[in-house]
């Protein structure tokens, strides 16, 4: 049995922490969520010397303040799980800002090792760090690394083991010196804390004292169960008053300043910078990419490219998957005897697996693109360029990519909200994404606009897309005001230098998302698809089948009778041929009628009937109600259901005419048709989307909220459209 070690990996965003994690753990990784929240938790294992080391990748943060979920997670992990060693990944070209987090980790009393990363880039920028001196000053072993070329990984592990075994020559615990006046105040708070009989060493007293002085809400929460909490808080208030009187600044600012003062001192002592050697290439690239004039068109081009790559290129493998699933269905149908088992296997299960797999190509390609943009540094520029617009919806510029991808397919789009920094932005973006008209809704518009607005089809369809965007803006403002009030995150964002991404990192990232999708969404979508299939296929109605069989027999018999009467005539053969055609047509009509009747008898059909009165004010008939129900599986299914219910059979591209004809003859008015399109645009997102929304938001309530607000919105909007349309003479 090897000895166990737990190591936490902490660091700022954009310092190569992910690459280092990949180097440390290789393929032995596991992605999950932190308990109760949707922030990704990556864990991996590595054997080193006689240790089995578990590496936990903490979210990338600039600080450990209690204002963001990521920072609370990182901090609580270090405090509560007490990893044996914290590896702090530091960008060597940005020592001062990176050390701010390090100082907070030191305050937590954790054992630490510095991975001084990207030392090569720093050197090329003329920045040289005296690693030995840094280690001495901070009492922390320093290991230089170049993570994207897998350099320094072994040395880092060796330092971790030495530190864990407390035999590293430099490792010792230091105090960040906040200056005599602040230190005196901290000392008094610590004393009151330590005097409490319930005190245990689980909270490092210095950390708690510092945080209390900063009025950190989480730290205040942590002392609630202390008997002496009032005495502690009185001491804190007294200290704050005193410091404010002397310095004219609030203690929070003072602590941050002193911390930076300490860091500044360190940097002056260990860093040598050659004069004015700037990151010329990156700045040149940026001059073009965020240019006042060209920045925007270039940006639009990249977004177009990402969209095309995801959805146009993604359609190829999607078609293969669909063809494969269809072939398997046919295979099962020919292998197994007629019956329930065959239907369940072919239509229920294989169909269900197909509906899970069909999203994989788009998810893979989208995340391939996103992690490429992320790793090059362009993602921060996307946020920079689009923030003005997204801010109007109460969102961060980073929400633009998920929203844009919504026009292709809502499922990968909602998954793409993982790149957003705050839980609030993630939820709001997820709620608005379904208003982006996905490609599955387009066939419905094409059909209805083609039939009822033949000369203006293009304008009508364009109008629907705009309506979706308009609703997103409107609801973005409403949700901001009511639902997620006052939680807007600071935008403050680093614009990292441009870099060439490492292929391996991009691929690992993509693979992570695919496994997350299969594990978290796949099973739920599969089960739900099977349930909906059951609702659409049952109850079987043997009487109905028997009645139709009887009618078919009668029909055949009547044709045989006719043929018999003509026997002996010289044009008998020609007559029979005509008669045969007539019979086929009559049988086909009967089959279609039977299909429609059967669908009407299933649970979904009956439910459609029950719901019809609700939709009657909009002018929708029962057929449209049922098709909206089946459209929950996937919105394009609205069309095939309408095909069945209007008794025109399978709607293929060639046979779309017959459905168009049927709709023309159905007595629907253009106003109602327009209302129906608006309803399809806005009503509940499809099954896979709501499942993704549920799993990604981490709460069933958001899924239920999304479904109900969209149904309400769709009804109201469709009602308004139908009424106004009728007034304008479209009735």
């Amino acid at each position, binding site marked *: 049995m090897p000895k166990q070690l737990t190591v936490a990996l902490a660091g700022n965003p954009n310092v190569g922490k992910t690459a280092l994690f990949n180097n440390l753990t290789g393929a032995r990784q596991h992605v999950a969520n932190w308990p109760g929240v949707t922030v990704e938790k990556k864990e991996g294992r590595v054997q080193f010397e006689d240790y089995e080391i578990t590496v936990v990748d903490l979210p990338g943060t600039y600080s450990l303040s209690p*204002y*963001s979920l990521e920072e609370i997670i990182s901090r609580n992990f270090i405090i509560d799980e007490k990893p044996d060693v914290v590896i702090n990944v530091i960008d060597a070209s940005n020592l001062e800002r990176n050390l701010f987090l390090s100082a907070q980790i030191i305050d937590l009393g954790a054992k630490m090792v510095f991975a001084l990363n990207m030392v090569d880039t720093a050197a090329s920028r003329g920045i040289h760090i005296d690693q030995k001196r840094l280690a001495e000053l901070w009492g922390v072993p320093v290991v230089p690394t170049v993570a994207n070329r897998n350099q320094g990984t072994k040395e880092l592990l060796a330092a971790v083991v030495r530190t864990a075994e407390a035999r590293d020559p430099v490792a010792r615990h230091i105090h960040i010196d906040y200056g005599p006046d602040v230190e005196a105040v901290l000392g008094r708070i610590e004393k009151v804390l330590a005097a409490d009989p319930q005190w245990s060493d689980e909270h490092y007293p210095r950390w708690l004292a510092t945080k209390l002085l900063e009025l950190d809400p989480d730290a205040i929460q942590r002392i609630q169960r202390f008997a002496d909490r009032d005495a502690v808080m009185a001491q804190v208030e007294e200290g704050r008053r005193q410091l404010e009187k002397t310095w004219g600044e609030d203690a929070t600012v003072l602590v941050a300043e002193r911390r930076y003062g300490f860091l500044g001192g360190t940097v002056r002592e260990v860093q040598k910078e050659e004069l004015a050697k700037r990151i010329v290439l990156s700045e040149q690239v940026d001059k073009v990419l965020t240019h006042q004039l060209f920045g925007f068109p270039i940006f639009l081009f990249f977004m177009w490219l990402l969209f095309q790559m995801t959805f146009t290129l993604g359609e190829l493998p999607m078609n293969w998957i669909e063809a494969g699933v269809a072939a398997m269905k046919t295979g099962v149908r020919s292998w197994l005897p007629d019956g329930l088992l065959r239907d369940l296997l072919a239509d229920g299960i294989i169909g269900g697996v197909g509906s899970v797999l069909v999203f994989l190509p788009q998810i893979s390609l989208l995340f391939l693109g996103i992690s490429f943009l992320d790793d090059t540094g362009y993602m921060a520029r996307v946020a920079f360029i689009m923030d003005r617009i997204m801010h109007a919806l109460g969102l961060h510029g980073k929400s633009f990519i998920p929203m844009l991808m919504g026009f292709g397919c809502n499922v990968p789009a909602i998954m793409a909200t993982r790149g957003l920094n705050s839980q609030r932005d993630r939820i709001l973006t997820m709620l608005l994404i379904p208003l982006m008209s996905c490609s599955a809704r387009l066939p419905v518009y094409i059909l209805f606009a083609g039939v009822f607005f033949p000369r203006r089809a293009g304008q009508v369809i364009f109008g629907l897309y705009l309506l979706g965007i308009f609703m997103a803006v409107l609801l973005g403002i409403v949700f901001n005001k009511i639902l997620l009030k006052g939680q807007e995150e600071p935008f*403050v964002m680093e614009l990292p230098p441009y870099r060439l991404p490492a292929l391996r990192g991009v691929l690992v990232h993509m693979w992570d998302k695919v496994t997350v999708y299969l594990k978290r969404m796949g099973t739920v979508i599969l089960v739900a698809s099977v349930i909906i299939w059951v609702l659409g296929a049952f109850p079987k109605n043997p009487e109905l089948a028997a009645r139709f069989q009887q009618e078919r027999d009668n029909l055949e018999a009547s044709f045989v009778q006719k043929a018999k009467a003509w026997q002996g005539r010289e044009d008998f053969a020609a007559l029979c041929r005509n008669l045969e055609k007539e019979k086929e047509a009559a049988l086909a009509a009967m089959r279609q009628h039977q299909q429609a009747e059967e669908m009407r008898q299933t649970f979904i059909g009956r439910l459609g009937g029950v719901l019809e009165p609700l939709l009657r004010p909009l002018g929708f008939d029962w057929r449209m109600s049922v098709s909206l129900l089946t459209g929950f599986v996937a919105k394009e299914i609205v069309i095939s259901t309408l095909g069945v219910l209007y008794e025109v059979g399978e709607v293929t591209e060639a046979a779309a005419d017959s459905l168009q004809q049927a709709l023309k003859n159905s007595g629907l008015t253009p106003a109602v048709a327009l209302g129906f399109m608006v309803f399809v645009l806005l009503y509940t997102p499809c099954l896979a989307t709501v499942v993704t929304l549920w799993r990604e938001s981490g709460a069933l309530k958001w899924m239920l909220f999304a479904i109900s607000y969209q149904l309400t919105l769709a009804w109201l909007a469709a009602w308004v459209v139908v009424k106004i349309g009728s007034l304008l003479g479209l009735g």
Partner: protein
Amino acid sequence: MAQKKLSELRPGEAGVVERVVGTGPFRQRLLEMGLTRGVRVAMEKTAPLGDPAEYVVKGYHISLRQGEADLILLSEVEEVAG
């Protein structure tokens, strides 16, 4: 020299942080990112749509919305050679 807000800097200008006003997470975040008293900040450029803007502080680039840059008061504003 008269006090200026960070948001009032034009590209190519720089100033020294005198005070960060405001409260709560906003200010905390600005402090954490190194925008403390005495630190020099240079304005690089605005985004194509006018907001946010890019600044350089302690050798790295940071983007702030106008409303956030309003919270940072500067002294010693000067032109730097672009």
